[in-house]
């Protein structure tokens, strides 16, 4: 028996040349060192790596010398006994030692099976030199990302919608379709953030009015009464024929199933947190710009004038006035000469607002007692309503009586005044007064000293006094006549009708119009930083109470310009004014709705200014003032 070392070389043509070399001895050595019987030029093999020995010529014992072992059947061993008839494959570094038996010989086949180095291995050039080897493929990434996106942002939201179909209100918490929220909801609807379906009921159907009135059951349920009463043909005729762009947009809106005229046309949502924005001007001007001509052409009667933009195209105001004493209120056209409004009072504004003269002097004399200055101001007589929007009607007792006193007697320190607004009562009170009170008692009748007789003679003090006393009740008629006649307390301010058959003294009814501009909303409170006379320019020159002092359009336009700043004349501090600033569409009587950030802060609360209380009217003894 002997060991045969077999080496196989491969020629360039691929032909294999097998060389067998018999090895002497029972024990042969294997290692990197050239002195070994089996010389393995492999750095992974020790210089003296192993011995291979066979005692019986069949069984082989392989023993590793030191340190590195060898691999047999996947395990690293130091010693192995091998039956050469069964054969085995051992691994030393990058080489394979195959032990086999051929006849009586044990054949040892040594081959390099591993590449010399890692770099010697075959590489796929395109893959190895690119990033393909170190990053997941682009295609994998593309599919993964795309699927994730579709799952999270398409399937998820639709599933959320589907699972709450027909449910009145979704539970709080996260719902996948919140990822579709196109912008924050207005503060009024902020709690609907998680409940898309509260408005978007059906898929691919634009939000309907039904979704709105589902909650808005009271106010704003329908469109404006004025518009709802108009026949649809009239509403259609009022609309301006759309231009090319408008027709294109309408075509798109139709094609994509977005019907016009819904609540959301004006009340747009998802425009950002905070209050919902005011309706833009164009929603009004679409019809009201040039509407009269269109209505006329369509055979309808135009009841309102055209309006396009407050700065450039707005009709003159038509305040509610009584054109003649006792007439019914009607709309007057401003800007065409003086307009008279007969309310039944006599009141010269110019006299009361004069810087000098009797009124100013009287007002100045009351300084300290009332909130008067050196002269009378508008606010001394005109008081705003509690909400500050309008000016309250003037009340005689509160606003006039501090000067125009109706006091006539003081009983035990209590002042008695004539009953304002009740002429019959005035008459009765005066009669009672003259009946129950004696004339002023002459001084000579006082005291306890004895008087000489003769005092009753004609022209003497007793005679005069007692005759006067006897006649006193009859003087009442004169006093009544005086009060109601020129120079009397009533006559100064009121139109008095003398007694006729069957009735006594009559005072013409007084009408104070609480709101001159019924269709527009004017808020005095919002203008409190402006002096009254800046707008009511004619007041300081007005001689008659019948002069209408309501400002016209031009006064408003001193500050207010169109929504986008359009104006006819130069304006110093311009306030952009869309229709909705003064006009209320739904017509439910309220103030036009304004976003909170545009609302004015209540200045009173900041400055602590006090509103005026009732004027207290005190009796002034006629004797003190000499009258």
């Amino acid at each position, binding site marked *: 028996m002997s060991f045969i070392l077999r080496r196989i070389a491969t020629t360039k043509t691929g032909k294999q040349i097998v060389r067998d070399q018999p090895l002497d001895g029972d024990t042969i050595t294997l290692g990197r060192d050239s002195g070994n019987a089996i010389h393995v030029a492999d*750095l992974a093999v020790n210089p003296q790596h192993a011995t291979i020995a066979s005692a019986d010529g069949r069984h082989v014992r392989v023993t590793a010398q030191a340190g590195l072992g060898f691999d047999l059947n996947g395990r690293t061993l130091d010693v192995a006994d091998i039956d050469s008839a069964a054969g085995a494959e051992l691994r030393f570094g990058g080489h394979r030692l195959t032990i086999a038996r051929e006849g009586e010989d044990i054949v040892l086949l040594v081959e390099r099976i591993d590449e*010399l180095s890692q770099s010697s291995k075959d590489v796929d050039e395109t893959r190895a030199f690119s990033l393909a080897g170190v990053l997941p493929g682009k295609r994998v990434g593309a599919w993964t990302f*795309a699927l994730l996106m579709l799952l999270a*942002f398409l399937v998820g939201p639709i599933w959320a919608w589907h699972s709450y179909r027909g449910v009145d209100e979704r539970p709080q918490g996260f719902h996948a379709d919140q990822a579709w929220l*196109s912008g924050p909801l207005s503060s009024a609807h902020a709690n609907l953030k998680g409940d898309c379906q509260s408005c978007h009921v059906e898929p691919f159907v634009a939000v309907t009015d039904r979704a709105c009135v589902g909650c808005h059951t009271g106010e704003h349920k329908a469109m404006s009464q004025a518009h709802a009463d108009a026949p649809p043909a009239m509403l259609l005729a009022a609309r301006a024929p759309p231009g090319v762009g408008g027709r294109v947009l309408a075509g798109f809106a139709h094609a994509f199933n977005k019907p016009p005229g819904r609540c959301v046309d004006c009340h747009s949502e998802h425009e950002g947190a905070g209050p919902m924005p*005011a309706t833009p001007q164009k929603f009004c001007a679409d019809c009201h710009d040039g509407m009269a001509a269109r209505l006329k052409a369509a055979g309808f009667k135009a009841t309102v004038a055209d309006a396009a933009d407050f700065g450039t195209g707005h009709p003159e105001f038509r305040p509610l006035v009584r054109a003649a004493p006792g007439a019914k209120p009607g709309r007057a056209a401003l800007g065409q000469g003086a307009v008279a409004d007969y309310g039944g009072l006599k009141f010269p504004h110019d006299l009361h607002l004069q810087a000098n003269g009797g009124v100013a002097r009287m007002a100045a004399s009351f300084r300290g007692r009332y909130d008067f200055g050196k002269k009378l101001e508008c606010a001394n007589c005109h008081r705003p309503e509690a909400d500050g929007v309008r000016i309250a009607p003037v009340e005689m007792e509160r606003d006039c009586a501090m000067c125009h006193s109706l006091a006539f007697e003081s009983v035990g320190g209590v002042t008695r005044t004539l009953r304002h607004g009740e002429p019959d009562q005035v008459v009765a009170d005066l009669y009672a007064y003259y009946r129950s009170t004696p004339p002023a008692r002459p001084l000579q009748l006082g005291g306890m000293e004895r008087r000489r007789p003769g005092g009753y003679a004609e022209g003497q003090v007793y005679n005069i006094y007692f005759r006067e006393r006897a006649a006193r009740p009859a003087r009442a008629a004169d006093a009544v006549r005086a009060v109601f006649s020129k120079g009397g307390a009533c006559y100064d301010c009121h139109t008095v009708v003398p007694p006729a058959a069957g009735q006594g003294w009559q005072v013409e009814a007084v009408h104070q119009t609480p709101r001159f501009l019924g269709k527009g909303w004017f808020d005095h409170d919002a203008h409190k930083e402006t002096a009254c006379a800046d707008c009511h320019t004619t007041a300081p020159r007005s001689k008659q109470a019948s002069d209408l002092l309501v400002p016209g359009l031009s006064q408003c336009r001193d500050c207010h310009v169109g929504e986008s700043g359009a104006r006819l004349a130069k304006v110093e501090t311009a306030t952009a004014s869309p229709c909705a600033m003064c006009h209320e569409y739904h017509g439910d009587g309220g103030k036009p709705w304004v976003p909170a950030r545009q609302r004015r802060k209540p200045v009173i609360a900041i400055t602590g200014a006090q509103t005026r209380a009732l004027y207290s009217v005190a009796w002034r003894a006629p004797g003190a003032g000499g009258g």
Partner: protein
Amino acid sequence: MASLFSGKILRRRARATQTERVRERRHEGFLRYAGFRWAKISGGLCLLVIVSYALIDVQPRPNGGSWYGYTLGTVGALLILWLTALGYRKRRMTRDYWSLKAWTSAHVYLGLSLIVIGTWHTGFQLGWNVHTLAWALMMLVILSGLYGVIVYATLPAALSNNRDQMTQMQMLEAIRAFDRQLHAAAQPLGAADTAPVLAALEEDPFAGGIRARLTGRYPRCATAAAQRALAAATGGEAEARAKVVALLTQKQAALARLRAHLRLRALLEVWLYVHVPLTFALIAALSAHVISVFFYW
């Protein structure tokens, strides 16, 4: 008639080929293609969008849901789909219609114009939702593409300098040659000295993750470690060791060249691993964005 027609086409084609030749001679790249034709078109488009956005007063505020927003959105979405089609176009060899260079030029410049079209479509209203997600993905895709354009314009020169007229396989072959020499030269060394050499041989020149590829830094390089270890080692076989150390130094230089090459290639390629997957993510998000608008109409 037919022959006249085909003759016309032939002449036109001949003229086009002539123009193409001139361009080839001038080495006109996709960036300056046809005298920056697509740059001008794209710039004009951006200007048109910016000016019209300023002039058109959308009430109550600029919004993707206004008619102007829908117009920009439609243009943007179609543009995205067409830009994606470059992947299809470049795989299709054709002599007709546009050259790939023209297509790429248009892809780059129209893609950049999407920054304006897409952003102005939002009306500058961004939030945590699918709509903004689509916008953000679009911006990432555009920015990665912009990076790609910049590296395509700047890195090839560095790549060319580094390879020094060698092919990639020649670079690898040089390393293989040093490995063989190292293997032979290290045979006389003892076990302690062989281990680092063996580690250097076992080192895969293409090893290292994306980080190593992009930075070109390999702090645990076995070849460098072996060189250090053997240079510091003492003991017998000093002559053989000196030879091995010299070979290791040479191998290091060859490795450095290969690694610099790999780094430049990684820098040239990495943007596509963002650009392409995010494009498809974008198209998915865009679909969700469009469907969501109509679903909750």
